[in-house]
């Protein structure tokens, strides 16, 4: 039997952050991970590998469009092994780094699948090993949602993890789900040469985001991809010799079509029901979420939960902040999770990012707001990098001018959104942003321009008439 003070289950961004922070605060910490490499979904089969492949896609696309800059490259020759290796090198560099950091902090790492026995014990599944803990942080994350109606047993039906393996480049590929993951994978496979069709149940791609923010991307993929079917349902999927036959229900879609490969990206399911947490008395809802207070404590006093398993949005940067709260509370600190905003980013081409409240949310809540929209067609920097699409949209309290939310679509939107997140946390007004000098020419200027549009002080465009 192993005894430990703090046990962290799961080594994703939430888990390793919790373990490291707890160790730094003087605790003896044990970290259990099912897989051999640390880092969880994010590092192994999520954020990092997808971003490395997205960079590959970007280079291909840039080269393709270089002719308009007066430079013409030959058509790219794609060496899939090389692409995979680059991705794997990056992943192993990062996971190895985490391993080293764990060692430097004397965090004990155990490989295995933990299941609760009681509120103080877990066992390693398939072994007799029992680990006894004083405090536990559950960071077991989420998994790809797999509907049984789709024939996943066929290799041609992929989830995002399979797609990142990059076994081949299908000629015709269907992406089921027009959310962030589906669109990012579509971006990669499109650049590598696949002919993409996207099918989305909702009325717009990335349904949670404001429509105007996703429109530049939608216009682009509508033009570049074979098809983008909105308001369309996949009713049946069967594996045939020629390919995967998919039947649709929707007014624009054909009744059926056959694809070489299908990526199913319809969301993620929390892993709450897979760890016997009920044996510890931890309450889990029927979807598998564990609820916590704002100190990340579950209904059981010595058991905490963080990351995807405690709720939406399932984002690594939410998990890491929750992880620190849990580790600090365990160490007697008075931390709490009270972030005003968690930004969301789609690393598509163009990127889409938003933070704070969306226009939809504000309208629904009946909040009076002032909107400032700056189209990137008027951005010198955007034009200089060979782009025309993109918008920055600021949402401000109609009375006080305080920033409520921001949405950006365009190159590097994911990096640009941080300014707005900081502004929200600091309670900035539109004039605070407009009066902060942004370097010219940059894409970050567009944030200030959006504030100036709301304020009516813009000079790079005609200001909206409603204000002085």
């Amino acid at each position: 039997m192993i005894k430990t003070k703090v046990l962290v289950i799961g080594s994703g961004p939430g888990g390793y952050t919790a373990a490291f922070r707890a160790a730094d605060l003087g605790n003896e910490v044990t970290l259990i991970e099912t897989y051999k490499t640390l880092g969880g979904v994010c590092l192994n089969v999520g954020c990092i590998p997808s971003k490395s492949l997205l960079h590959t896609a970007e280079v291909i696309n840039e080269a393709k469009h270089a002719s308009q800059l007066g430079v013409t490259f030959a058509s790219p020759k794609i060496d899939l092994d090389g692409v995979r290796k680059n991705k794997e090198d990056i992943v192993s560099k990062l996971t190895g780094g985490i391993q080293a950091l764990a060692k430097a902090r004397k965090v004990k790492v155990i490989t295995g699948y933990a299941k609760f026995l009681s509120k103080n014990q877990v066992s390693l599944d398939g072994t007799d090993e029992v680990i006894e803990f004083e405090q536990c942080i559950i960071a077991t994350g989420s998994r790809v949602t797999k509907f049984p109606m789709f024939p996943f047993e066929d290799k041609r039906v992929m989830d995002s993890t399979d797609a990142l393996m990059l076994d081949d480049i299908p000629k015709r590929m269907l992406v089921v789900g027009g959310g962030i993951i589906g669109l990012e994978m579509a971006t990669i496979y499109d650049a590598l040469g696949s002919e993409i069709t996207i099918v989305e149940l909702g009325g717009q791609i990335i349904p949670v985001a404001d429509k105007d923010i996703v429109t530049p991307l939608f216009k682009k993929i509508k033009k570049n991809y074979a098809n983008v079917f909105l308001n369309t349902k996949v009713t049946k999927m069967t594996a045939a010799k020629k390919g995967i036959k998919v039947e649709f229900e929707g007014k624009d879609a054909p009744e059926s079509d056959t694809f070489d490969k299908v990526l199913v990206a319809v969301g993620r399911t929390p892993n709450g029901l897979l760890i016997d947490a009920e044996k510890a008395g931890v309450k889990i809802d029927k979807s598998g979420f564990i609820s916590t207070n704002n100190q990340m404590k579950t209904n059981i006093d010595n058991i905490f939960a963080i990351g995807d398993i405690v709720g939406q949005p399932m984002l690594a940067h939410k998990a890491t902040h929750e992880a620190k709260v849990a580790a600090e509370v365990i160490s007697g600190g008075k931390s709490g999770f009270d972030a005003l905003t968690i930004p969301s980013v789609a690393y598509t081409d163009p990127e889409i990012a938003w933070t704070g409240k969306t226009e939809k949310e504000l309208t629904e809540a009946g909040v009076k707001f002032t909107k400032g929209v700056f189209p990137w067609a008027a951005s010198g920097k955007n034009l200089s990098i060979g782009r025309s699409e993109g918008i920055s949209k600021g949402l401000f309290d109609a009375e006080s001018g305080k920033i409520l939310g921001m949405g950006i679509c365009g190159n590097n939107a994911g990096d640009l959104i941080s300014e707005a997140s900081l502004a929200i946390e600091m309670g900035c007004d539109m004039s605070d942003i407009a009066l902060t000098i942004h370097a010219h020419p940059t894409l970050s200027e567009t944030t200030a321009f959006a504030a100036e549009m709301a304020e009516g002080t813009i000079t790079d465009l005609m200001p909206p008439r409603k204000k002085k």
Partner: protein
Amino acid sequence: MPTKKNVELPDIGDFDSVDVIEVLVKVGDVVNENDSLITLETDKATMEIPAPFSGKVASLAVKIGDKIATGELILTLESDSDQAEDASNEAASPSNSETIESSNNKSSTAQKNVELPDIGDFDSVDVIEVLVKVGDVVNENDSLITLETDKATMEIPAPFSGKVASLAVKIGDKIATGELILTLESDSDQAEDASNEAASPSNSETIESSNIEIEAPKIETTKEEITLTTDSTSHASPSIRKLARELGVSLSKIKGTGKKGRILEDDLKSFVKQIVIHGDTGNEVEVVPLSRIKKISGKHLSNSWSSIPHVTQFDEVNIEQLEKFRKHQKERNIKLSPLIFIMKAVVQVLKRHPNFNASLDETGENLIVKKYFNLGIAVDTPNGLVVPVVKDVGQKSLVELAEELADISSRARAGQLQASEMKGAGFTISSLGGIGGTQFTPIINAPEVAILGVSRTQIKPVWNGSSFEPTAMIPLALSYDHRVIDGVEGAKFMAELNQVLSNIMEMLL
């Protein structure tokens, strides 16, 4: 040709400054003579200020919530030149006419405002001393008032010589940069210098009165704007939220002092300091500001309590006879409360003990004995205690007194008493007889020297020589100023009052 004429607050009596609670006109309104312009609320009464002449409102100098003092500008009326001339002849303030002539007339004087210079980074500071009084002649750089900030006290010097014409502040006031301290009356030369030095844009029209109009409210306006724009949820940055968590403080309890109500680290620290000093039981509390009457009467009461050596003499009076008489009158539909009889009896006894109907002068060395018999009667109102005065009690019949008392108390409850109705008492009665209690020790209403407290009548067994007889007894408590009245005199007063009340025929004596 229309001319503009200032309308200033006429003498409203013994008030430093009063609250403007209603503004009844707006710019552009045409008002007739005697139309009401604004409503003022003093400690105990409200009053409407009428227009001294007709005209069109050109500008307003006050708004709801402002404080205004005698002589300060209310508004400017635009009137035909005829009317304006009439008005200025009729009610010309001395300053106005003199201004016009000042260049020619060497002996004329002019008034000049002295405002608080920039004292640095303070919103407003406490006035802890006023070193001059009206009529004093001060030289340049003489100290006028003393201010106390968190960390230091400072004296504010006179910017020029002159005679103090009026004081705008008193001890305990808060004053901010640019607010009026006092008005100095100086030779015309000096006044001219001064006005050149610190000319305000409005000076060109009427030198003195226009000075008064703006400065004081200016700062208040900005304050108001800040509170108005404050969101219901004050903003705090992540680091402040973190600190609050560590200190275990709920930010919703803190009022931010930063821009737009933002909660700053200092706000958090001073909140915690308050808790450390005053304690926090953890139970929920609510801060309810005292009513204005309570704030004012509270100061007065604590002054009385701490400065007057009180002695309280208790007694119980057999009022069987009085009750019988009352009952009889009641059957005839004449309602007389015991208080009416007590008032009448008190006056009877006061006549024999003039020291009780008196007040001690400011030096504490002379007794001012009053030759009239006015009684203050404490009345409970929704906003607090007020003490209207019933005049010449000795000359009024019981029925007249009953009517007057009913009228005055109902108006007191409605907040409609005039300031003059609360002045001029020589002795006060506070009756809690309608509510209960066996006795209480009333606090003297300074500068008076005695007060009578009345508690609830009870039927008590009283030994009549052969048996105990159920007897209506009313408890009385007489508090007196021991500096003025000694114990023997106090006991005598009470004994005689008892005698008169238990034998009501003696009231006829």
